[in-house]
């Protein structure tokens, strides 16, 4: 593998992906010295809780994030199990983000413990990419009293993200522009952004095991087999990824809307689009662990007039059924005789659920069952594809 800094191809962009190592567990170990060197698992400790973060001491036992807490307890019974303390992680995260902000005005936080930085043109201030990354790591460690971050530097977001994961924990990987393909191609397809277990199986069936295999495959053949996603991963496998670092990602609301091919009139016509939006919004909230306390319905008339109505939800929720019910109630507040060209909704007043949520006295009948069902559907769709399951009352 060629190593030269200042090699033949110049850096068009310098993208840094910085990812804190086992962040929640690391904060706990930092604050409670007696936990250092011991397996620590942070997660929801209730019946349906899942692992948020496992310390590196717990990982050899097979404990990883998103695993049901019960399973983690079986795999690693001697681990210390802690409920998450988001206030403290939030404080630590603030310190980390402050450091990032010193390095670049273009920071795109992906979560509390992970961000992209666009450091293009900053060589004059911080030196070549590797020096930048070393300095970033040192300043994070100092600002957080000892937390470590793994950093990947590359010309694109995708490669930077793969690179930060390359030598975790406390890793530093710089992928020069002319090393991108030699870096990517030996890696398994699982490292492709967005390739879940189902896609991996699909790719394996096609005989594609490494990113290099994908790169060498014919793009139109991939598209035929995998749809638009095929094109996406083919581009990634060739190191093509021009997505910019986007600041201001902070989700104050989660929304979905549909611009319709033809204008529609009346509640019956609007309903299915609201349901679709509710489904998309709720899935995203469940994925990100958010609960909404408010809902806004948005309609745009054929004359491009934007109409919105909003309400408070009876209790914080991530259920598509609850969103849909509230949305239909709001629909009664619009003049629905006007033709509409756009239908959408947004959930707002978002909270991270869990601790400190005030429980509600009254619930929709069967709400808990419905919630479990919705989560199961999420899992099925993730594993077997979007069309794998459908609600019986979807009526399509």
């Amino acid at each position: 593998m060629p190593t030269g800094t200042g090699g033949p191809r110049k850096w068009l962009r310098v993208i840094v992906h910085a990812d804190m190592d086992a962040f929640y567990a690391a904060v706990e170990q930092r604050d409670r010295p007696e936990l250092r060197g011991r397996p620590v698992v942070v997660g929801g400790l209730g019946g349906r809780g899942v692992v948020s973060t496992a310390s590196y001491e717990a990982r050899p036992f097979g404990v990883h994030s998103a695993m049901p807490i019960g399973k983690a307890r079986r795999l690693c019974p001697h681990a210390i199990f802690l409920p998450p303390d988001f206030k403290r992680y939030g404080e630590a995260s603030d310190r980390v983000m402050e450091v990032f902000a010193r390095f670049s005005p273009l920071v795109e936080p992906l979560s509390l413990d992970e961000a992209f930085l666009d450091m293009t043109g900053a060589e004059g201030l911080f030196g070549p990419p590797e020096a930048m990354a070393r300095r970033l790591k040192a300043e994070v460690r100092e600002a957080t009293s000892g937390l470590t971050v793994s950093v990947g530097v590359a010309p694109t977001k995708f490669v930077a993200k793969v690179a930060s994961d390359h030598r975790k924990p406390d890793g530093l990987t710089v992928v020069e522009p002319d090393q991108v393909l030699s870096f990517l191609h030996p890696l398994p397809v699982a490292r492709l952004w967005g390739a879940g277990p189902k896609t991996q199986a699909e790719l394996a069936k096609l005989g594609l095991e490494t990113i290099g295999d994908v790169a060498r495959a014919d793009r139109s053949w991939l598209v035929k087999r995998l749809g638009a996603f095929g094109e996406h991963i083919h581009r990634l496998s060739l190191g093509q990824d021009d997505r910019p670092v986007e600041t201001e990602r902070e989700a104050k609301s989660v929304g979905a809307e549909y611009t319709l091919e033809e204008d529609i009139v009346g509640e019956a016509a609007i309903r299915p689009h609201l349901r679709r939006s509710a489904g998309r919004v709720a899935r995203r909230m469940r994925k990100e662990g958010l609960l909404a306390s408010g809902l806004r319905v948005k309609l745009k008339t054929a004359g491009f007039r934007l109409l919105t109505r909003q309400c408070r939800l009876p209790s914080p929720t991530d259920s598509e059924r609850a969103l849909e019910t509230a949305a239909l109630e709001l629909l009664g507040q619009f003049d629905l005789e006007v033709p509409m060209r756009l239908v959408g909704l947004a959930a707002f007043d978002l909270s991270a659920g869990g601790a400190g949520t005030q429980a509600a006295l009254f619930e929709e009948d069967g709400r808990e069952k419905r919630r479990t069902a919705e989560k199961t559907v999420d899992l099925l769709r993730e594993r077997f594809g979007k069309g794998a399951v459908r609600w019986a009352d979807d009526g399509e």
Partner: protein
Amino acid sequence: MEIRVEAKPLMAELNLALSIVETKATIPILSNLLLRAEGDFLELAATDLEVTLRTRCPAEVIQPGAVTVPARKLGSIVRAFSGEEVPLSLKTTPDRKLFLQPVGKRNEYHLQTLPEEDFPTLLDPSAEAAREMDAAAVKRCIEEVLVSSGNEDSRFSVRGALLMLEPESLVMVSTDSHRLTFCSHPVQTGVEAPLRVLVPKKTLVELLKLEGDGGLKMRLKDNHVFFELGPRLLYSRLMDTAFPAYEKVLNPATDKVAVLGRLPFLEKLRRVSMVADSKNRAVVLSFDPAGVLEMAVRNQETGDEGKEYETCERFEGEAVNIGFTVEFLIEFLGVTKEEKVSLKMSDSEHQTLLEPVRAEGAGTHKYVVMPLRLD
């Protein structure tokens, strides 16, 4: 219209009327009070179209008549004169103003008016049969129920209270979707068949302000409820919101009971709540089997912590930890008057039932609260 009226009693009625008038009324006439002089009194009326108050104060009527004047302006001027020894003279002038002057003094005020006809039509329920109840008992019931009345109307939160008359009891229920109050007071209501209406919160709040403990007359007419106490008539449209099926949550299955002295419990909760941050108002109540209650608050922002302890007068059941929004407990303990309260609990996920410990036959006050999730 021309009258002479004492400033002090006029001010008392004006204060009641002013709390009806919306501060940000969009229709100009709703910022005005209707004044009507006849017989030996001045009638004042104020409305926000939902709630209306008609009241009167004694006056020397020289020329009967009626007019409307800006409520707040009249209120401030009369308030400024309420120290005067002499009565106020109020009369309408040919240029449609209200002239106001302390009798025998030189200072004078001229207020803009709007014609009486512009004022919303006032309702008169006197032809309807009245149910007469003990005003003190009704007010007590309202105080209890206002604690959990919602601040907005949604599916499970009602900005008002359910009022039910049964032959020998008055029942009121309110909920803001996280807690619910059910109170039943032994009151001779005069109804033969049970009667059930939903009364807006503002009406209940205003009713509490009406003085007098005698008989409160309640009437129903044209989808309105009327309360008459002494010379004052307060009425409002009934709400047509659906009230949640409260019966389902009223008697939760519980297997632990604690009886505590109300005042020490209240005082310690108030003190420990000072530690809590503005967003997260959680207090964790931990009972051990010996009956010692720990009240713990941890400020998530600063890490400050506070703990208070109280020994139950009685405790039955296993140890239990339950988180609550601390104000939910404080508000209940603040409105009850009894010396002791009981908490009936199951676990940290289900509702807890709080009740004042009362003598048999002294009525029921149930307060059902959902917990705050702890993990």
